[in-house]
């Protein structure tokens, strides 16, 4: 019975021009091919075109505002006097805290998970947990900061709270990137070190980490630039709208570049919109330079392998 049904299908396929599912009109198929190629090429370009329009639009509005006064003045409720200095310093403070807290902790956690951890339920839980944390919306970290750091730990709406929250936020990104870099170091490097009498930590410190460094650094720079651009969690813990003084220490209240941009964007006067655009120009320049640096580093590293 199965043979006869095969027979039927075969006969069907042999009918000229239809051939079952297989379309034989080569011209039409190639026409569709050209259309499809154009379509997917356009899809690739749309995002970049929007990026181009965005940069031109922001530049057109923002660049004329950039001046010595803009970089050196304090915040103000008055558009003509308002400057970006407290925001720039605030972002630098935050970056400093993130560098001190998130980078060593992230690298340490990655080394533990790759080099030391056994395959038991606890370590598997940590692994799943880290990939989940990487997907938690940043505003949720802001609520964590508000509930735990601001109120329970009593750190207030301070630079320290902001820095710690950003550290927690980018920790999973650093861990994931560093783990990949550590995993890529060949096993023979470790074995060579052991053979010469090195302990596990000595092998890691002197041989594995130096080789994993470029990869880890790339991921870390990308994570740091995410921290610089992050807005929502800082609003949630209560960064101030504008500062008429400079941040003085870890427990000082603060603003940051994206926060200042957000507040200027919310003002109805057009002068403030232009200030926001100028702030964006500065922020984007910082991010473009650091991201380009990270990508360059990775390309150099990949070519060597």
């Amino acid at each position, binding site marked *: 019975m199965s043979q006869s049904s095969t027979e039927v299908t075969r006969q069907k396929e042999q009918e000229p021009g239809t051939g079952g599912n297989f379309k034989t009109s080569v011209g039409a198929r190639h026409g569709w091919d050209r259309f499809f190629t154009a379509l997917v090429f356009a899809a690739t370009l749309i995002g970049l075109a929007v*990026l181009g329009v965005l940069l031109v639009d922001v530049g057109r509005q923002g660049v004329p505002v950039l001046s010595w006064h803009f970089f050196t003045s304090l915040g103000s409720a008055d558009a003509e006097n308002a400057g970006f200095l407290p925001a720039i310093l605030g972002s630098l403070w935050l970056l400093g805290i993130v560098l001190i807290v998130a980078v060593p*902790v992230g690298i340490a956690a990655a080394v*533990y998970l790759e080099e030391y951890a056994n395959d038991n339920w606890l370590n598997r839980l940590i692994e799943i*947990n880290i990939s989940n944390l990487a997907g938690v919306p940043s505003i949720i970290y802001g609520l964590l900061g508000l509930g735990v750091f601001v109120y329970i730990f009593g750190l207030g709406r301070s630079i320290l709270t902001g820095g710690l929250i950003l550290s927690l936020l980018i920790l999973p990104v650093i861990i994931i990137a560093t783990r990949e870099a550590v995993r890529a170091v060949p096993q023979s490097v470790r074995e060579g070190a052991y053979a010469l009498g090195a302990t596990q930590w000595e092998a890691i410190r002197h041989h594995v980490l130096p080789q994993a460094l470029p990869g880890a650094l790339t991921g870390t720079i*990308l994570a740091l630039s995410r921290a610089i651009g992050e807005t929502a969690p800082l609003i949630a813990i209560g960064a101030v709208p504008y500062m008429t003084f400079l941040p003085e220490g870890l427990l000082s209240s603060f603003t940051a570049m994206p926060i200042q941009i957000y507040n200027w964007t919310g003002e109805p006067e057009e002068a403030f919109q232009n200030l926001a655009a100028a702030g964006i120009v500065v922020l984007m320049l910082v991010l473009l330079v650091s991201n380009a640096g990270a990508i360059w580093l990775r390309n150099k590293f990949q070519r060597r392998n």
Partner: protein
Amino acid sequence: MTVETRQGQGSGQNLWRESRARNVRERLVRVVLRACAYISILTTFGIVFVLFGEAFTFFQDVSIVRFLTETQWTAGFATTPEDGEFGIIVLAWATIFSTIIACVVALPIGLGAAIYLSEYASAGLRRWLKPALEILAGVPTIVYGFFALTFVTPFLQGTILPGIQIYNILSASLVMGVMIIPTVASVSEDAIYAVPRGLREGAYALGATKREVATKVVVPAAISGIVASFVLGISRAVGETMIMAVAAGALAQLTVNPLESMQTMTAYIVQVTSGESPRGSLEYETIFAVGATLFVMTLLLNTIAYWFVRRFREVY
């Protein structure tokens, strides 16, 4: 093992002491590194504790039934639990609606870009296009918000949609769609790139054209990775905050008109936290109830994506 090697050299007590110190150091390093790895567990614990702890207090004032069934959100005007309405559906619908619009933009474009990068682009072009997409992914969301408010909305107003309001969900969602393109494209591309060459060559040998190979062989073979990229993109759209807070406005209303302002869950949290809301006030508690809802939604989506990614890794 190390200890024996050192003692084998037979040079006595000094070395033995040194190796004991080394053992202590080894153990210490291990403990410190492990503690760093456990911080991630503490973070999750902290998030769950804060969100659900405060949400629990909120649900003692406003029952969960009211939270799930009421059809208005007037928490901003309520001083007591009785004189306000707390229907999460209003904020959740805005989130879902904006996500749908963003996905209509981002999923096809992201997949198209992934197909182009993996199947069509020459190696030289790829070297330029991939970093460019990464730069697109690195643009802070506040910048996208500014762009949606000061460029896209006026542009739509001046060309095809004169009736659009200054704050509207359409421009915000369209720009959010552009924001997720790189996420969808890069995860999909990884999956498509991982499809074995033999499958493509087999199809070519049967006379298939390049498009037929891409759409009928490669994409189906990479489908679980592609689905994972879609789910990750959706999850990012659900959690996106600044674009919505800046460009979609703060009007908590239940509507299907994309030209009007709608407030998403994330935008609501921003609105409340950027004003004065003392700890313990009803408004303060609402943001944690909303945050808990958001957390559960994204956790669910991320878990689905994680499951799909693992499936696609197992195949090859």
